[in-house]
């Protein structure tokens, strides 16, 4: 039993932030790792990356976009409500070293995961340049938090309602072209964004890490549902990842695998409305 301590709606209510009381997990979780939660007895297990933690008060923060049945159900939960199961930490933590200058690229809800990792890079003594993107001004999340931990922050929106107009790849291209001290790029967001970032950094030969979010059930390496092709080898995202070298990931396959259950998702939602 895990209690929701705080709930915050962001981006016109499509992105929700939960602070969940889970002292044992908060003590252990590292940037890049995720938890699996199951809301109630009939619920499915969904993986969510932890955006922040407070070891002292035993709280983990998850931020998620409402995309399907379970996340819609979670939006209806209130502060003080109980989540039945939270399992974690899962996955390998991000490898954080002092490498010099790193660019953190985040899109959509990916910024939530990025924040935890960017914070760790900053604390390790790196120069952190952050590029975060969203569809429009309202959909932008964690802007202030990212600003606090970045040396430079660039914001892009698709429609130009805030910051630069365009995609995150535009300022990234500029940075990569102008500055030669960039050692590492971390890209987290929609698959298409990560794919485009990787295509770009390949041209500049800059090492790029991505954090993947395939369909998952148990999150402990048992089901193999989360398999992704990395460097032409099948890897299990939950135990071998979720962070991989972006230049080796087969994004096309991932994209197709992730859209397998769209129809079922709709049926499930319709069932709960009925």
């Amino acid at each position, binding site marked *: 039993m895990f209690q929701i301590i705080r709930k915050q709606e962001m981006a016109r209510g499509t992105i929700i932030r939960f602070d969940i009381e889970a002292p*044992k997990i908060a003590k252990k979780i590292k940037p890049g790792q995720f938890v699996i939660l199951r809301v109630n007895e009939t619920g499915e297990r969904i993986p969510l990356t932890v955006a922040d933690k407070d070891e002292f008060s035993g709280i983990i923060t998850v931020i998620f976009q409402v995309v399907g*049945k379970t996340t819609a159900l979670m939006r209806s939960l209130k502060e003080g409500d109980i989540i039945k199961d939270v*399992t974690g930490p899962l996955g390998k933590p991000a490898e954080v070293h002092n490498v010099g200058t790193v660019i953190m690229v985040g899109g959509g809800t990916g910024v939530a995961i990025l924040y935890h990792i960017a914070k760790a890079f900053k604390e390790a003594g790196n120069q952190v340049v952050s590029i975060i993107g969203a569809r429009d001004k309202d959909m932008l999340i964690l802007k202030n938090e990212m600003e606090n931990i970045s040396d430079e922050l660039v914001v892009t929106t698709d429609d130009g309602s805030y910051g630069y107009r365009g995609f995150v790849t535009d300022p990234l291209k500029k940075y990569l072209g102008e500055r030669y001290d960039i050692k590492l790029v971390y890209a987290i967001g929609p698959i298409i964004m990560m794919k485009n970032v990787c295509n770009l950094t390949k041209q500049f030969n800059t090492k790029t890490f991505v954090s993947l979010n395939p369909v998952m059930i148990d999150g402990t390496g048992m089901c193999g549902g989360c398999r992704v092709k990395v460097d032409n080898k099948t890897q299990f995202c939950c135990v071998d990842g979720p962070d991989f070298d972006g230049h080796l990931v087969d994004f096309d396959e991932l994209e197709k695998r992730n859209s397998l259950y769209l129809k079922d998702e709709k*049926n*499930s939602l319709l069932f709960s409305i009925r």
Partner: protein
Amino acid sequence: MIDQDVKYLKFKTYLNTYCPYCHQSFNVEKKHDKQLIFKAIFKEKEVDLTLSPYLDVFESTTNLEMGVGELLDDFMCPACQKSLISKDIKCGECGSNVAEVIISAASKLIPFYICLKKGCEWHGLTKGDERKIKLKIPRQEMPEQDKTLRIHNHQEVPYGYTSELAALEAGRCLQCKNPKCVEGCPVNVDVTGFIKLMRENDFDGAAKKIKERNVLPAICGRVCPQESQCEAKCILGYKDKPVAIGRLERFVADFERKMELVKIPIIKSKKNKRIAIVGSGPGGLTAAADMALLGYSVTVFEALHELGGVLTYGIPEFRLPKSIVQFEINYLKEIGVRFELNHVIGNIITIEELLEHFDAVYVGVGAGLPTFMGIDGENLGNVFSSNEYLTRMNLMKAYRFPEYDTPMPRGNKVVVIGGGNVAMDSARTAIRTGSAEVTIVYRRSRQELPARQEEVHHAEEEGIRFRLLTNPIRYIGTDYNMVKGVECIKMELGLPDDSGRRRPVPIKDSEFIIECDLAVVAIGTGPNPIIFQSTPDLKRNKWGYIEANLKTMETSIPNVYAGGDIVTGSATVIEAMGAGRIAANTMHKKLSKEN
């Protein structure tokens, strides 16, 4: 004679019985019931006496009002009216008069004696004759759900023995002095002991007898591969079919549960020592129960949100109802075992940290990492590992989608790759989701199928097709990256390999395509890396499993024990339980020495 209302059992074979003087048969068919009719004199009155015609004639019915210990005055053949009382032979038990009849069994005519005293079981057969006759009762089949009905539901297939069938089957046991079946059992259940109690109609006592060695009899009776363990060693098996030990075990365990005869033992000697068990599968549960009964304080850590390990996520409802698993786990809770769900050991707590709080740690995490063949198209949509397929169905209850949120993988034509129990489970689950055609593809021949015979038999009954000596070489996908077929190649058996089985070799140019829209890969599992990532000191063997002493289950780290699939690779429920028991014994020995 034992006066007992034995009902007509259609599986029972009856013996032909003849008069030694006029050679008329005593067997009469009456209202679908076969009976033996005699004439007798009781309290100076002539009466018709009816006895049951089975080999155990002493289990007879009679309409006489006779008290135990009372004697019949005379016993006659109804045809020739001659008295059948033997002049030379008296009852070996009570010394009273006996009637002599001739029975034909095992193509021999043997004299058989019926004691005239009620309650006496003597029959005058030599051990050898008795054995021959016993062979005549065929192995009793379990009543089960009709095959056309059961493929539309997820309820358990066999209903289990009735008490009559169980008594009959128990009667087949020869009660060997040196029972080989006990040796065949990985946890050495006293098989002859519990069957003896069953023959005395003490089903409760029989259940308690099994529980001395096996804490999960209702589960083992259902999922153990008895034909390669206890039943493989049964002497009866040489000439006939072995005693159905597994079905009897299942019956008494169910009897005990349904009659609410389960007793929670009082643990007298509480010890001030703590044991951590990692994994709540069969091995972990056995180790936990043993240690708890010895008085240790036991905590079990489970990674998933439900207890039971493979019993819960792997074995389907129709083979092992989850309510039974739950019942057995509740028993452990009541003897004081603590359970911690959602604890992935290695991540949330490391083994090292466990050792700070616990005196010993048992690692029984199983081999949960699914293996893939590494062929083309394996990552297409609707290609599942058996683990994923069964986890969705059993743990997440996807077969009740959309009531449960996890989507149900469904295909019209399903191909399952592999020949083990997991492959059978996957195929039989698929047919229950309404698939029109389910095919099992296995690269060796029928003899090598590693699944339990009963499962193979059930699968065939349910209409699952077998493509033996066939190996998949690639999956073919649609434009939308969904699987639409499996290309296979035919195989033939070559020379034996390391495992002693003949190695399958592909036949050139024999490729063909099996159409499918769902494929399940059930070709085995490997060790999960999580526990090793945080415990690099834990020594692994060449296959990547934990290296442990199989006699003591000790690992390379002091006070850390391991057993089950994580040591041996994929095996059976009972073998994991055997390992849990050995580890519990070693832990107990070591920890009591420390005092």
